[in-house]
């Protein structure tokens, strides 16, 4: 099944205007001299040694690096799951570097969407209910919850799959449910942590197509963590981590186009329905 995206025309126009001036767009993430030190017994481990990074609205950034490079720690801090030991982090205009556990939970609820490598859907729970979950914690009314989750599922090409449980969906479909879940609270930023790690190459391209469409057509800011260079090439900008520091930060001149690649691929067996 091909992912078909349905975008409302007025949203398209609005975001097209934004896209034109990406360099002037307001920053979504501002990291200033972020340090993170873990104490393991008597040994201090410096996971991050002064990271400064600005990501603006509408950017699609891939974060790369080997394990131990500090990319996961950065991801956790950007995702407000963890706090920096030192440094300042401003997310969508709010300083979150010193926020309490509960405040960070609220920030995650309002401003962030997560997509994980292992999908992380609730088992024995329908796709619709999985997508509704973030809104439940954001305190959104039942009727609106239903309409928004249906809309989100449709936008990732899963209309008609609302009542399927994760074990009745393929890996690609499960990841699309997870993407719908990350979208549904209209976050300022979607964080995807190795989203294609558990998928075959064709399904990976399909998932990247959804990300590209969300970014290009709806102007959603995306941060993608990956260790695969060919996946990073779908983004507009690549940030490479090494030993707790940013080693490289460069724009991708010619990002790969997932939609075009999918058209070229032989029309293999459709994902079983």
């Amino acid at each position, binding site marked *: 099944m091909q992912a078909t995206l349905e975008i409302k025309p007025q949203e398209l126009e609005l975001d097209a205007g934004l896209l034109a001036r990406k360099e002037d767009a307001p920053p979504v993430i501002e990291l200033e001299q972020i340090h993170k030190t873990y104490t393991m017994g008597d040994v201090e481990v410096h996971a991050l040694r002064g990271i400064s990074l600005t990501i603006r609205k509408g950017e699609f950034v891939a974060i790369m690096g080997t394990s131990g490079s500090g990319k996961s720690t950065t991801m*956790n801090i950007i*995702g407000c*799951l*963890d706090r920096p030991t030192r440094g300042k982090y401003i997310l969508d205009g709010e300083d979150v570097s010193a926020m309490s*556990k*509960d405040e960070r*939970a*609220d920030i*995650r*609820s*309002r401003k962030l969407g*997560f997509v*994980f490598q292992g999908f*992380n*859907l*609730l*088992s*024995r*729970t329908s796709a619709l*209910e999985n997508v509704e*979950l*973030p809104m*439940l*914690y*954001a*305190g959104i009314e039942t009727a609106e919850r239903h309409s928004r989750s249906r809309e989100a599922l449709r936008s990732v090409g899963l209309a008609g799959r609302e009542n399927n449980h994760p074990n009745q969906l393929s890996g690609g479909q499960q990841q699309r449910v997870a993407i719908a*879940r990350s979208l549904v*609270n209209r976050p300022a930023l979607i964080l995807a942590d190795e989203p294609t790690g558990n998928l075959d190459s064709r399904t990976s391209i399909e998932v990247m197509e959804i990300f590209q469409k969300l970014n290009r057509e709806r102007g959603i800011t995306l941060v993608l963590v990956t260790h695969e260079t060919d996946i990073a090439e779908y983004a507009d900008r690549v940030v490479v981590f090494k030993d707790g520091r940013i080693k490289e930060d460069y724009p991708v001149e010619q990002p790969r186009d997932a939609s075009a690649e999918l058209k070229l691929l032989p029309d293999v067996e459709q994902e079983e329905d």
Partner: protein
Amino acid sequence: MNLLMIIRVAFRALVRNKMRASLTMLGIIIGVSAVIAMVSIGQGAQASVQAQIEGMGTNLLFVSAGAQNVGGVRSGTGDSGTNTLTVADLEAIRREVPSVSMVTPTINARTQLVVGNQNWNTSVQGVSEQFPDVRKWTVASGAFFTDADVRSSARVIVLGQTIADNLFPGADPLGESVRVMNLPFKVVGVMARKGQDPQGRDQDDTAFAPYTAVQKKLLGNTRLQVAYVSAISQDATYTAQTQIAELLRQRHKLAAGAPDDFTVRNMTDVAEAANETNNIMTMLLGSIAGVSLLVGGIGIMNIMLVSVTERTREIGIRMAIGARSSAVRRQFLIESIVLSLTGGLFGILLGIAISVTIPSLLGWPTLVSTTAIVGSVIFSAAVGIAFGYYPARKAAALDPIDALRYE
């Protein structure tokens, strides 16, 4: 996130694991239904004792020969060896105590009743003609003997239903002759059926004859063991009790400070004693059943702890997408309360069903107690909170990063 939504989340989580949820509830179901059934058995027993005591008349007093405790030696009340209560005493009570309306002695003679080739071992009680009024016991057929019969020591007898059934199966005993210790007594009446007394003895296995006849013709002595006295009203029983005691002390010429050689008790005291016994029994049964409730609660805690470990990833997901620790804690707490309360509700239904079935199955009276029902609901909710708190706190304390990484 409001409470209603958390309750819904908790319900969904439980419905996802129906088998486990119902097995966990089983512990509470058994506990609550056991408490309700046990308490209703206890209350049923209490109610039936109460009804029997009230059936005997609440303005009833017992006067018996001998004291309950005299130097700890002569312990028996109504001991047949004591001669301290006489017919003259009773007549004086009837005549001189204004708060007393009726008096009847009871002189017990255990003997064999013979009719033709049938015979029956029973107790023949010598009483006065006021006995049916004092004991609120009516005559089913014929009539009770009269004042004249008592004065003339007439050989007449009134049979209890059990005796009538056994000595005259299928026949009318009225006017027939019954031999008591080889003396013929004429049957003038048959008492209405009374059933068992609070001690479980068959009250219908008794015959009644004028006490004068029993004393002179059957026993050959004038000893009196127990007398029933009716006060003019229930309020007058305590006055009557003191007045009788004063009169008897005076008549027996007891010096001030000397112990009573008689005992006067009233029905209220007897009822209280019986109540106390029953309360102890109810509490004992209820607390044994309560232990099973406690075990059920531990079962809930066990499952909730397993559940927290098993659902670590789920907790991580919920936290990552914006659940506060408090929302996670409340979810698990509510899951555990829902488990225990739902179990409690099913337990109440089962308990009531058992209580309703027991009388026809075992012949024990039961009384479903609202206190026990309300108590079990509160207790099962408390079990849910108490045993769900620790697992819930454990869930809320998880770190989302670790929880998401948990395999």
